[in-house]
């Protein structure tokens, strides 16, 4: 049964505002929201530091965006305009489900337009359009610990963060360069936030990493399964790890353009056509692509 079918059936139980009766605004109880907001404040005060919190049960499974969802629900207000992106796309199953859920429990307006939104929850992408200081971007995080690749023990990675003992992370990059001639990390590229903590920017492509640096927007990161919240506040330096003679670089799409809107300045997805196996490229950010190709709008 679809959510809206169930809601229609249970129509009698809905309050006047359109929300489900028996649940507080925003689904979570006020105590939970308060705890999460406090953790967010701490995270903002110590940019890049992972704040542990008590991750709640959500009506979706852990690992499907519950960390992001809990941040969203603890921040959302009735006058917010909400947008959800899943790997750049507004229309994927996960994005649509989260959107419907939040609209149901918090009674907010939904949009696909980055500019119009006040609160955006995202997985694996940062929108192409530069966001403003009036907006908040909530990122879903599967693995909050950037050092996990080099150190399996949580006790040890916490000690490494405390002592700023990052030589092993750098050694990992050194070995990569010695073996392959360049750093082979394609997404989850480790960054230094505010000159202190090495932080996992969530699985965004390299393309999006520079957008975190000195941004106008507050970025909040929620890992529901791993029970961590961290933040990159506005106007904070975010430097990808790089060497003086091996600089960080983003993906290169030169010579390629979006087959839909013709964009040459966006992050492109490669699509292999089922008939003939030809390759074409489309904007990963579907909301932005829609805006620029009115012919496709309906």
């Amino acid at each position: 049964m679809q959510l809206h079918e169930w809601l229609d059936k249970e129509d009698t139980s809905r309050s006047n505002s359109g929300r489900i009766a028996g649940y507080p605004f925003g689904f979570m109880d006020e105590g939970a929201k308060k705890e999460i907001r406090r953790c967010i404040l701490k995270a903002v005060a110590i940019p890049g530091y992972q704040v542990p919190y008590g991750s709640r049960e959500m009506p979706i499974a852990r690992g499907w965006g519950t960390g992001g969802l809990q941040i969203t629900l603890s921040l959302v207000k009735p006058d917010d305009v909400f947008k959800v992106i899943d790997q750049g796309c507004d229309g994927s199953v996960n994005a649509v489900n989260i959107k419907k859920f939040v609209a149901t429990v918090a009674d907010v307006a939904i949009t696909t337009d980055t500019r119009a939104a006040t609160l955006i929850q995202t997985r694996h992408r940062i929108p192409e359009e530069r966001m403003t200081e009036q907006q908040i971007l909530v990122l879903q995080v599967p693995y909050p610990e950037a050092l996990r690749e080099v150190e399996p023990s949580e006790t040890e990675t916490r000690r490494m963060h405390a002592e700023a003992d990052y030589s092993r992370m750098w050694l990992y990059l050194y070995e990569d360069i010695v073996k392959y001639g360049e750093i082979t990390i394609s997404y989850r590229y480790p960054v230094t936030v505010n000159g202190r903590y090495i932080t996992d920017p969530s699985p965004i492509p390299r393309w999006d990493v520079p957008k975190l640096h000195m941004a106008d927007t507050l970025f909040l990161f929620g890992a529901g399964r791993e029970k961590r919240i961290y933040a990159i506040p506005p106007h904070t330096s975010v430097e990808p790890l790089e060497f003086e003679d091996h600089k960080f670089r983003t993906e290169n799409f030169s010579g390629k353009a979006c087959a839909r809107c013709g964009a040459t300045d966006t992050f492109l997805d490669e699509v292999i056509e089922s008939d003939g196996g030809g390759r074409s490229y489309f904007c990963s950010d579907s909301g932005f692509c829609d805006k620029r190709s009115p012919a496709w709008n309906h």
Partner: protein
Amino acid sequence: MEPLIRIRGLSKRFGQGCSRCQESTGPEQDTNLCPHCGSVMACNDVSFDLFRNEALGVVGESGSGKSTLVRLLHFEWEASEGAVEMHRSVGPGILPEIFVNGSDYSTNLLDLSHFQKRQLRNALIGIVYQNPHLGLRMQVSSGGNIAERLLGAGWRHIAKMRERSAELLEKTEIPVERMDEPPCNFSGGMQQRVQIAKALSNNPLILFLDEVTTGLDLSVQARVLDLIRNLRSEFKLSMLVVSHDLGVINLLCQRTMVMKSGRVVESGLTDQILQDPRHRYTQLLVASQL
């Protein structure tokens, strides 16, 4: 000349401890285990000075507290008691806050935070363990092992780090073309030399050598010892050489301390100790060696 580091009353106790630990352990009692509370006094009231460009030997049988001493000074273990102070000239610019009111000696280094201790260690201290597995990452390339210390000291230029690694490997007689091989491919003697190269990479002032030649065959031992002697004069290192082998101590060190059951029983010039041992235990040690 003023000592580079002053060590005073350094102790390490494993266990609760009781009021009778001091009187019940030590060389006279021939044990470091307190019979009353079961604590082990691994290292008890050790005091000495280490001077610039000096090699100080520490000899003693297994369990006498030699390696414990090194681990305390390398900040790997927390000392139970004692003070370690370093002279201002050791690391100009490193942690200026520990020299209170312009004094010549720092505050007790053992009281510093883990973060500060790490900074000191990265900047000033090198260590070579008996077992290369402790000092090296066996799966990471030899060049990478050396680079790790450089990265810890803030180096961020791959080509410069590789240049430095190559230079050090050459000094320690490892073929530079094997730089990108992991140490697990190397023989024991080569691993030990990679470890020495790693320890020297950040130009330390102080080098701890913990039984470096134990387990190597005689010809390799001789080459490693030669290497250490040359490096000491080249880099003006202060070394603390821990060994149970009086031959090694005789070859490397001007001064020597003899440890037994956690305490220092005798110290002085190496020649003097070897030729005219005063303490009964030292006499036994020298007699059994020669």
